[in-house]
């Protein structure tokens, strides 16, 4: 039997719990967070339920059907154009009055709406009582109480949704918002006009179209023109007349009056359905916030949180990093013993394990970092960070909300760039997208840890912190620069809801970590592995190199020479001579290896690009590592793992030692870190930039700007540092 398909969209104000409910229904794990604007694109999920094949769609949050920013447009267009069978309006029950604004608008379109009064628990603890029967009766909609994060009421909600989809319910006109007489007159005039001239070509409910046109809705205007062609212009002329008439009459724009009247209508409903107990309660969230955004300690606390995040990442992460490192070590040694000496062994140990293993050990650090960012997001502190930082961001011509993508950028730039969708102004968005890559993402962390660890010892922490700081400072300078040149314009207003603090759910945090680990391991098995294989292959071939001298012969000669010496020497000197022999042989072997590497394909590539990098103190191996890093920044480390540490055993210690003995100086290491911080974003980030700015131009611009800046800064660091003799 073919099941009947139904599509159910979840709409509602930002942060009302749509994604939480979506995850409950579909069993997926889309991202949830306690700040408005977590979901920026629609997500779909399918389930089977009581004989139906349900398609559930999670939409970005929106405050009204007159969209302000991109993700709100996504939500509205979906409801209008895809016409889901049922729209579930997820309402934050503790915030009923404002939520009903969207609800009343949803009911002006001809779609079947169902109310989910979510966060019923929060409403209860605040002493808010909602008469659901009355609400349902007044607006003629089914109403269901739900608690998203406890999975309560979800089943009833779905059942009601299916029932509603199957009924032939039409919203009774008298349950819709009634505007004042003059406005209603205008609406019906426009309705008639459209009805007479173009009824068939308008894809939406006529009354709704009339209302939107009267409200001067740009997108609806465009659509109407598009669909009706010539008559559309007449319609718009009629609208113009009506608007002029109303402006005259009310001394204000119709859309303002209508917003007012909708709230008037809502006030009437609220009066009948909502009772708040007058008992005084302690608002814990409010008290917490008084401390966290306090005039004097607000900023110190904020800086402490950021500092603590990195501190935890590095110091706490060091322990499990050691364990993984020894594990890989052990494994590698084991392989070295059991496998016969051949090219396959070389491939496994010096290619795969050296490459992937050198990045793998950073899993704990990266997880801790993501954990901390998730804490910011889930508690509600993220919005406060934006609140605190707005003034500073404003000074550089940006927006407090831009700070959210920037903070997320410390984890991964890709979702951070997506998050900039919540910014209302196009220019703000582009600007934020362009500076986000300077927020050092977790993939760059391994490079810093390796280099700073090898060259700066006890000061490594400070150096790494300095690198992060440099990224932030350069993003600010870049922001300021672009704002006054390429992307001139006023910054958008700052109207942002500050949600109450919530205690994050441990379970969802753990799930988040688990998902992150899977993603990381997938990356390891994916392009880090592929990259390592390529790098190893290019390093191992060609196989028959013509060496500048016959190493094998020389080794033999050295051996025979020492052998005779040893025989001739006294008993007491024999050990010493044997040691000397070992050193001499090892030196020759290293030299051979180095020559082999230089004459390999990789070495030849390295030699070609090396001149570009030599002014910033990076040798050909470093250059190659940087080249490979544009695929994913972790690959810089895996390539270094293969190129530098050509020894048997690979781990961060071995790589560090190899780097130390490679002739790299601390200042060159610093220049390399600066370069890695700034140079062109990885492929995934570039794709995100391309997608989100909808322009190849900005992507190319981003590549050029960041790479040039990286080179320039690294040059300054290296040459400057060398000059003052660090």
């Amino acid at each position, binding site marked *: 039997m073919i099941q009947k398909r139904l599509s159910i969209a979840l709409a509602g104000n930002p942060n009302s719990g749509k994604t939480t409910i979506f995850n409950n229904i579909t069993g997926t794990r889309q991202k949830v967070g306690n700040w408005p604007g977590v979901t920026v694109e629609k997500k779909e999920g399918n389930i089977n339920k009581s004989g139906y094949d349900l398609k559930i769609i999670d939409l970005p949050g929106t405050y009204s059907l007159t969209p302000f920013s991109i993700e709100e447009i996504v939500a509205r267009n979906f409801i209008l154009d895809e016409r889901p069978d049922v729209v579930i309006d997820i309402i934050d029950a503790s915030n009923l009055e404002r939520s009903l604004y969207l609800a009343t608008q949803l009911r002006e379109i001809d779609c079947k709406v169902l109310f989910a009064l979510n966060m019923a628990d929060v409403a209860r603890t605040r002493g808010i009582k909602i008469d659901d029967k009355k609400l349902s009766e007044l607006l003629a909609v089914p109403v269901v109480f739900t608690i998203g994060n406890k999975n309560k009421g979800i089943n009833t909600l779905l059942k009601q949704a299916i029932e509603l989809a199957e009924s032939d319910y039409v919203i009774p006109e008298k349950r819709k918002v009634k505007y004042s007489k003059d406005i209603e007159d205008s609406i019906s005039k426009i309705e008639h006009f459209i009805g007479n001239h173009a009824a068939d070509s308008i894809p939406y409910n006529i009354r709704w179209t009339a209302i939107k046109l009267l409200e001067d809705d740009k997108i609806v205007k465009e659509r109407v023109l598009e669909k009706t062609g010539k008559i559309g212009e007449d319609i718009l002329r009629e609208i113009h007349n009506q608007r002029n008439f109303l402006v005259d009459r009310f001394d204000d724009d119709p859309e303002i009056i209508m917003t007012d009247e909708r709230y008037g209508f809502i006030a009437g409903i609220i009066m009948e359905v909502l009772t708040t107990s007058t008992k005084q309660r302690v608002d814990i969230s409010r008290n917490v916030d008084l401390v966290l955004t306090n005039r004097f300690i607000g900023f110190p606390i904020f800086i402490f949180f950021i500092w603590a995040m990195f501190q935890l990442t590095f110091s706490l992460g060091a322990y499990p990093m050691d364990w993984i490192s020894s594990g890989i070590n052990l494994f590698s040694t084991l392989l070295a013993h059991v496998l016969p000496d051949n090219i396959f062994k070389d491939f496994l140990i010096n290619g795969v394990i050296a490459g992937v293993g050198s990045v793998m050990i950073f899993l704990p650090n990266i997880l801790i970092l993501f954990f901390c960012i998730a804490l910011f997001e889930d508690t509600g502190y993220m919005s406060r960070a934006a609140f605190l930082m*707005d003034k500073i961001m404003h000074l550089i011509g940006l927006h407090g909300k831009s700070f959210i993508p920037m903070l997320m950028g410390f984890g991964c730039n890709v979702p951070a760039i997506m998050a900039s969708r919540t910014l209302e102004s196009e220019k703000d968005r582009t600007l934020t997208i362009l500076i986000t890559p300077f927020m050092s993402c977790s993939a760059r962390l391994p490079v810093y840890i390796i280099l700073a660890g090898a060259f700066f010892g006890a000061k490594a922490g400070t150096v790494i912190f300095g690198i992060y700081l440099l990224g932030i400072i350069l993003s600010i300078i870049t922001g300021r620069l672009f704002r006054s040149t390429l992307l001139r314009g006023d910054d958008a207003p700052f109207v942002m809801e*500050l949600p109450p603090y919530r205690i994050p759910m441990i379970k969802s945090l753990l799930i988040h970590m688990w998902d992150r680990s899977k993603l990381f391991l997938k990356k390891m098995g994916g392009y880090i592995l592929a990259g390592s294989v390529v790098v190893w292959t290019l390093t191992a071939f060609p196989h028959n190199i013509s060496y500048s001298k016959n190493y094998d012969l020389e080794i033999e000669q050295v051996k025979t020479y020492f052998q005779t010496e040893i025989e001739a020497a006294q008993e007491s000197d024999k050990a010493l001579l044997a040691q000397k022999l070992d050193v001499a042989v090892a030196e020759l072997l290293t030299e051979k290896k180095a020559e082999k590497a230089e004459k390999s394909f990789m070495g030849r590539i390295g030699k070609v690009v090396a001149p570009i990098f030599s002014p910033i103190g990076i040798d050909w191996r470093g250059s190659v590592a940087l080249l490979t890093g544009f695929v994913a920044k972790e690959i810089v480390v895996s390539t270094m793992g293969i190129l530098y540490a050509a020894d048997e055993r690979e781990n961060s210690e071995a790589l560090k030692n190899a780097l130390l003995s490679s002739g790299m100086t601390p200042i060159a290491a610093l220049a390399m870190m600066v370069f890695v911080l700034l140079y062109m974003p990885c492929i995934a980030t570039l794709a995100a930039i391309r997608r989100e700015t909808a322009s190849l131009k900005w992507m190319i611009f981003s590549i050029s700007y960041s790479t040039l800046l990286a080179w320039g800064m690294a040059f300054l660091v290296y040459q400057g540092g060398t000059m003052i003799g660090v």
Partner: protein
Amino acid sequence: MLLSEMKEKQTATVVRVGGIGALRRRILEMGILKGTRIQVEKYAPLKDPVELIVKGYHVSLRVEEAAQITVENVK
């Protein structure tokens, strides 16, 4: 009096929301309209933006935006 002149913890009734275009609209849609009682919860440490309580929820506005909102009955 302007909303931006109010002190922390004061409440007042909105008389008029000024400004232009989409921003004004958005402020109204968020429930800040004529006759609404609002409370200034606090100013950010750098004195900008300002956090308000409207219709039981918290929202922040820039001071320059708050300066477009006229209030009366300040307590």
